[in-house]
């Protein structure tokens, strides 16, 4: 596969993954751009691997994990106000049959809570529940043991469950690790 073919086939998919990883389309574009520049400069090596997309996803994930905290953290994210969505969601928890609007609000809240997770945990969650990778593959991407991947995901899910049961005010603040 040539570099151009790879771009044609995979760039949109990589961008989608980056958006889920970062929660920020602008940062996602920056990360994909940086990753693909590295890939283009080393395409001979990357293209020779069995699964170039896997290698690129690893570069992208590492860039996300290592990305310096900076002004981008203060960017306005393109989603609804966390306060509003969590207010709605707080009511939804007590309801046995939430209506569709409430379920949407709940998902918004989950999305916002993802931003509170440390970056490795979020990456593990995205790789499993968005990219549908097996734990072994996630371990390869994150360059860690399979047990560590499971621990990341377990902690992430634990955090999300606790936060979803918390009153609204407890979910504010924090940041990515």
């Amino acid at each position, binding site marked *: 596969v040539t570099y151009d073919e790879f771009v044609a086939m995979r760039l949109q998919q990589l961008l989608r993954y980056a*958006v889920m990883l970062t929660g920020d389309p602008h940062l996602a*574009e920056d990360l994909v751009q940086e990753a693909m520049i590295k890939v283009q400069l080393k395409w001979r090596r990357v293209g020779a691997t069995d699964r170039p997309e896997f290698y690129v996803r690893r570069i992208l994930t590492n860039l996300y994990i290592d990305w310096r905290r900076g002004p981008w953290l203060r960017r306005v994210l393109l*989603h609804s106000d966390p306060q509003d969505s969590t207010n709605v969601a707080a009511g939804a928890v007590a309801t046995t049959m939430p209506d569709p609007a409430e379920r949407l609000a*709940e998902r918004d809240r*989950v*999305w916002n809570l993802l931003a509170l997770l440390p970056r490795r945990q979020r990456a593990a*969650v995205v790789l499993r*529940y*968005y990219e549908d990778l097996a734990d072994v593959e996630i371990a390869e991407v994150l360059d860690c043991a399979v047990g560590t991947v499971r621990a990341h995901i377990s902690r992430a899910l634990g955090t999300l469950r606790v936060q979803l049961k918390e009153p609204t005010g407890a979910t504010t603040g924090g940041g990515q690790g």
Partner: protein
Amino acid sequence: MIEDELRAVFERREDLVPSAAPLVEKINEGARQRRRRRRIARSSMAVAVAVALIAAGPVMTRTFLATPPVPTDTTAPTPAPTEPPIVPLAGRPANLLVAISGLGRSGKKDVHSVGLVHVSADRKNLNVIALPGVAQVEVPGHGKLKLEDAYDIGGFGLLDTALARVSGLTFDGTITIDLPALVKAVDDLGGMHICYGNREYHRVYNSRPWPFPAGCLTVSGEDAMEYATYYGHGAQYMLPPGFNFSAALLRNIVRGGGLGDADDFARFTDAFRSAVSIDLRGHTAQEFRDLIGPNAELTAVTVKPGYDKTFEEIQRDGEPTEFVMPAAVVTPLFAALREDRVWDDRLVRPVDPDPLRELFPGDGDWPPGTDNE
């Protein structure tokens, strides 16, 4: 279930994903810039090294002379010598290793350019040779390494080992140049003064004037580096104004350029102190200073990694984007340096029909001079 919620929220948030189409050109432009930075690091070496040589000699001398002698403790035991004896530089050719760093986009010193300086025994000829940092060489214990990686991993020690092996040269000292600091130093000095005897024209496109009229002008540090690395377009047009600029700049510095004035001299040496560091490997500062004769002619040599094509062109033509040091052209250069002959081909490029052929595949081709010369 929280897992189901996560899957649903990811699916729902796909509407945030922008189109990737506009990114393609940004990526290509970014890669072009990255390659250009590497090229600038490599080809600005001549200017940087010349400035370093001229600036650092006096700096070292001043430091050396200003330091009061340390009283000798005659009771202390004399340590056993572990280093090989230092052969004085006088009367023999000298070789210095050079590394330029500090161009990384992230601010880290992650882009290096490496090269060497050869000074002839009579001190009349100075070859500044920029080597492609991405060229690979065999390094014992490390396998095939890029020159820049050799420097990253093991500093000058490993670079020395790598280059000594492929060149057959021994190195008498090292120079490290922080290019951004050098550019700043030039600016701190109020720019570089440069004079042209004639209006410069592009060698190939004569209708397109090179921006310098006959006469003198002062350029900023950034511009000096930019002009020094100016190329025409296309492989066959690689000889050019950039080298002429470098040569004019160097002539200017070597032949006065304000250094005769005590205040200018002090400003000059102070400004470059942060940009240049030198390891004399046991030689004296005076020996180092004497490397540049009063009428030294400098030839900047750039060893090109391959034909000057864009990445897309290389891909289109099915050529590899990584390469091994093209020994067919480098070996004669190194041979000339070993024999202290003047090398005046300013651009060393592969001329072999297979420019990327690796000529150091095994022991049979080593050392240089056995098979390839």
